[in-house]
């Protein structure tokens, strides 16, 4: 990996790390959901520190360009995270539906007793 690219990736990893810390401090994300982002930022950090690791891996997997492999890796990770989020949204929707229904039924019950 070229020196410039290494610096760029390092910078990005640190930025991501700080951003998550900031969000946690402001109580904008819960610790549970921040973990996956912390791990990814640390992973990026480590990867960029070990010279030639990525180049070797790229050769091993048959990528002609290192940047291609990195792009593919990120797209893969992002896809998994969005999939997890979709699962969460589905669950949340089910719960809000249940809440709306139960609250509405209770309100009806209350009015009847008045």
């Amino acid at each position, binding site marked *: 990996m070229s020196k410039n690219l290494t610096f760029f990736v390092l910078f990005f990893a640190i930025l991501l790390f700080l951003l998550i810390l900031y969000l946690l401090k402001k109580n904008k994300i819960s610790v549970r959901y921040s973990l996956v982002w912390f791990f990814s930022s640390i992973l990026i950090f480590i990867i960029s520190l070990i010279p030639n690791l990525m180049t070797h891996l790229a050769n091993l997997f048959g990528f002609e360009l290192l940047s291609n492999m990195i792009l593919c890796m990120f797209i893969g990770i992002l896809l998994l995270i969005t999939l997890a989020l979709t699962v969460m949204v589905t669950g949340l*929707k089910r719960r*809000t*539906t249940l809440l*709306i*229904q139960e*609250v*509405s*039924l209770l*309100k*009806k019950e209350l009015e009847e007793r008045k």
Partner: protein
Amino acid sequence: MKKVLLIIPAYNEEDSILKVYKEIKKYNEENDMVLDCIVINDGSKDKTGEILDQNKIPHIDLVENLGIGGAVQTGYKYAYEKNYDIAIQFDGDGQHDLKYVKKLVEPIMNETSDFVIGSRFVEGISDFKTSFMRRVGIKIISFFIHMTCGFKLYDTTSGFRACNKEIINLFAKDYPREYPEPITTVEIVKRGFKVKEVGVNMKERMGGKSSIHTWKDFYYMVNVCLSILVIGLRRYQK
């Protein structure tokens, strides 16, 4: 005497809801079968809520809009809590005809069926006009349903349906929020309930807009077919 409840989902039905309620009152005066009703006001933005209050129509105001599936399920939950024996889904826009209620309820009363669907496409009663493309769409959905559960359903999107107590309990616990009509039919058949389709006539809508729009029809069909296939993969117990 069995307790019968009409579940009437209503979203922006200010033009028709009062008329529907008056027809139900008239029906109860003229017939020996008493139909209770509950209107589920699905967060209407027009005067539906005021009309319901002013005329003392039994209703539940959903605090947020849920869509047809969530609204109808609220009705089933109500039916479950109030211990009803039979629940009938009935549209708030006036396209369903009360005179067919007896026909829907009868097979459940004499226990030959658990779930009865009012259909525009059997027995040749209906003069309902649908476009060619829509009929093709319904045929395709019908084919998918036949393939996954072996039941030949003709009117896949009919929202005029009656069910017994066992199915009320089931729907109160679990009801699909999207495309509920075709999906629940497949689930009910797969669980081993007896389903019957009876011919009814449906009127032109008194007011409001149908929840299915023309340009969305194709998207609707693809979604329904996919959902049916997914349900085909699941296993159910009665």
